[in-house]
């Protein structure tokens, strides 16, 4: 490998050699919107880990003497209809959003890469099956399908939990019911959102396989694994990273959407979407209750979209737009 690289170096005698990643990092640092995205992502991680310690209240703690208040010294972002501290709930919502984004992204990426690569490498009926599955998933209105799946499976998961409780005495306390909601959301969103990455990976592999440099490598007698590890993976990593970043934002948005519709995180669990729908009736009297979770959701989704855009410009130099 090193011998190859130095030989290439001599042959073209390039004045300065920069790897794709160095170049991409430099490009990214120059993009102010992408930097904003990085900042938002770091803030989200920080808040979702340390959120509960940042606020003196509990996210389910009610104070019925102080409902629907505006921002004050005690409650920086005011209180909602049950006297719960808005800031605390927003911080907890960050944890929900981050967890859903993380797990759904891992799920869709693993599923997408495995299915897409299987389709591309094995071809034949495997490929046909994967692509038909993708077509069928695509044919559904995605939010409605996710909503349907989560409604159906929430009940099943609850039944299963009761079964565990009866059989083995495993109990999940009432306060931890939220974890069931998480589980259901992870599952339904993964099932609905995997196909984008599968199609991407399959397309990348199929098109790269026909490229001359792969042919040259093959002519030199390289093994399949060498080709996969040193050419296919690095070359398709760029688009995949972009898709993962955008998908992360998309998964968080879908969670908020499901919770907004009432089929995602159930009260008293905290989710930005649930907070918006919970307080929607108050828009005329206490607009801040609707605006605050909305603005936070918007900033986070925007941050990830900007970051995805910036990464796309940085990692896929052949399609740089500006």
């Amino acid at each position, binding site marked *: 490998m090193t011998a190859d690289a130095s030989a290439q170096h001599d042959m073209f005698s390039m004045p300065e050699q920069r790897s794709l990643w160095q170049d991409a990092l430099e490009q990214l640092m120059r993009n102010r*919107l992408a930097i904003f995205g990085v900042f938002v992502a770091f803030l989200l991680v920080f808040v979702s880990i340390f959120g509960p310690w940042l606020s003196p209240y509990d996210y389910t703690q009610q104070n019925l003497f102080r409902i629907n208040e505006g921002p004050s010294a005690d409650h920086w972002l005011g209180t909602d209809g049950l006297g719960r501290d808005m800031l605390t709930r927003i911080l907890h919502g960050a944890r929900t959003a981050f967890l859903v984004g993380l797990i759904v992204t891992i799920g869709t990426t693993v599923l997408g890469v495995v299915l897409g690569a299987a389709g591309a490498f094995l071809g034949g009926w495997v490929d046909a099956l994967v692509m038909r599955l993708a*077509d*069928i998933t*695509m*044919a*559904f*209105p995605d*939010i*409605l*399908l996710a*909503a*349907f*799946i989560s*409604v*159906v499976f*929430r*009940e*099943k998961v609850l039944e299963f939990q009761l079964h565990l409780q009866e059989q083995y005495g495993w109990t999940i306390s009432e306060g931890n019911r939220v974890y069931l909601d998480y589980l259901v959301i992870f599952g339904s969103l993964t099932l609905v959102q995997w196909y984008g990455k599968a199609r991407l990976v399959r397309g990348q592999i199929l098109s790269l396989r026909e490229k001359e440099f792969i042919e040259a490598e093959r002519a030199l007698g390289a093994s399949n694994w060498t080709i996969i590890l040193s050419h296919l993976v690095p070359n398709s990593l760029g688009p995949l990273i972009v898709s993962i970043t955008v998908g992360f*934002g998309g998964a968080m*948005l879908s969670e*908020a*959407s499901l919770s*907004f*519709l*009432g*089929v995602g995180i159930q009260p008293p669990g905290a989710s930005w*979407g649930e907070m*918006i*729908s919970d307080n*929607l009736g108050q*828009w*005329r009297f206490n*607009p801040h209750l*609707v*605006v605050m979770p*909305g*603005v936070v*959701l*918007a900033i986070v*989704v*925007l941050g990830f*979209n*900007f970051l995805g*855009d910036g990464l796309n410009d940085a990692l896929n130099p052949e399609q740089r737009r*500006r």
Partner: protein
Amino acid sequence: MLAPTVIIVMLITFTLGYYGPIDPVRAVLGEEWEDELRYAEVKKALGLDRPFVIQFLDYMGTMFGGNWGQSLSAFGGVASDRAVSEGRGAGFTGTSTSVREMVLGRLAISAQLSFWALVFLTVFAILLGVLAAVKQNTTIDYAIVTSSIIASSIPAYVIGPVLLIIFVLKIPVFKTVGGWDGMFSRQAILPAIVLATGPMLVIVRQTRAGIVEVLGKDFVRTARAKGLPERLVVARHMLRTAMIPVLTSLGLVTSGLLTGSLFVEQIFNIPGIGKLAIQTLMSGDHPVFMGVVLFQALIIVTVNLLTDLLYGGLDPRVTYD
């Protein structure tokens, strides 16, 4: 490809409904469900005492036969009361219990809303795209592209309430909001704008990319050389060429608007197809919910197919085997 996909979509929705958490018999009977006799009676009336395969074949038959079955509210009881109180049914307050009439009636409202959104899109998004392309790489360009990213990234249930607060509370432009009072009422304006923000970025980007591509082309230079004012060069020569991809993507946008209007309908309380879907999902009126999902899937599949064909028709380089 169309028929198999639709059948499998049908199978999936039917299976989900079959194993779903809400027992249709209970949804109909409410408190009365513990009465075993009544339970068995309604179960038979709904055809639920038959095996899964028979039920599915029967369901497929009713769907393909063009009569999409009956809402649970047709069987009286609690389901019917609930449907009446939610104002479900065909059109606005209709009391029909036929799934087809309910879906098509509600679709008409969503379609009218989507039509206005499409008008906003074609006027503003294409204009902004052209402007961004002509002022390529200037502050105006960046501002347009960035603001359309912002508009398209933020979900309708955030933009909607914010616009409500601005245009009803702060600057009282609109007095009555929510509900649906026909296509030409003032109530339709805000929801249509909110609905249009979703696909805005796609159209702006496509228009911009299309125009940028032809900026330096010979035919544009010729048009300029013969003394045509810049305005006409853009309108007659550049736009015409750049519009092909935009037009094809408008097809996809339309299906996106029709299937994605549920958040706007939820916020502005518009009795469209998305609202119907959410209502029936929550109340367990699965025949109607499945009808909506199936119908939307049909729209998506058809539009995808048409877009492919149209693309082939407009661009002679694309061929199909």
